[in-house]
């Protein structure tokens, strides 16, 4: 969205980095919206599986993802109530503003 900067201080990702072993991990993000946090997670993680039930949100997240991070991120149109992954797949999961 134009004309808005969200968390330029990076408070959110800093807090997550303090509490979670994100570096080099494969991370599940449930409810990624337009991918604001996904992009920051992808900067530190090995891989991010990001999902949201809203196809428009996922389309926007895909558009906004920088090319340098594209290999790290997979977006899925899916609900948190039915995760398209096998058991024991992730060391870390994140619900940011989505629960």
């Amino acid at each position, binding site marked *: 969205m134009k*004309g808005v900067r969200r968390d330029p201080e990076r*408070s959110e990702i800093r*807090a997550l980095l303090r509490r979670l072993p994100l570096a080099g991990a494969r991370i*599940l993000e449930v409810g990624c919206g337009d991918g604001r946090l996904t992009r920051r997670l992808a900067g530190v993680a090995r891989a991010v599986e990001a999902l949201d039930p809203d196809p428009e949100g996922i389309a926007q997240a895909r558009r906004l993802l920088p090319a340098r991070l594209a290999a790290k991120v997979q977006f899925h149109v899916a609900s948190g109530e039915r995760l398209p992954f096998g058991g024991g*797949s992730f*060391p*870390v*999961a*994140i619900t940011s503003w989505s629960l």
Partner: protein
Amino acid sequence: MAHEGMVHALREIHRVLTPVGLLADLRPDRRLTPGMRRRDVLARISYRREGREVPVGVLEEGSFADDEAADRAVRRVLREGTFTLASTETLPFRYYFRDLDSAEDYLESRNTANIDTPTRRRLEVLARRPGGEIVLLETLRLNILRK
């Protein structure tokens, strides 16, 4: 997402986590926003220009139903032993808007809160001089749940 859906999502996340996996639950926490006593306050609004921030007002939230349902869902999975609470903390989250239209467009997209008329008028006066930004300060709560 309704309460039962949230509980189900938490159980699904539990399923896909490794045996020592962690879940971060990050959400707005109005109860602890500094300087605020009212539960219906979503964020503090100020105007920032040349490094100075002037308090302008507050942003009121219309409905707490989703947040209360999320709190209940988390309490339920903790009670059931699906997860244990490893830590909880709060953190500031700031938005910077170029102008009032940008702020109102964004809030409209969230569909939960509005800038009240007196606050809007104060912002209009402050924004007559260029070079400033509208700042929204929201407090988030980060719960870390351990499988």
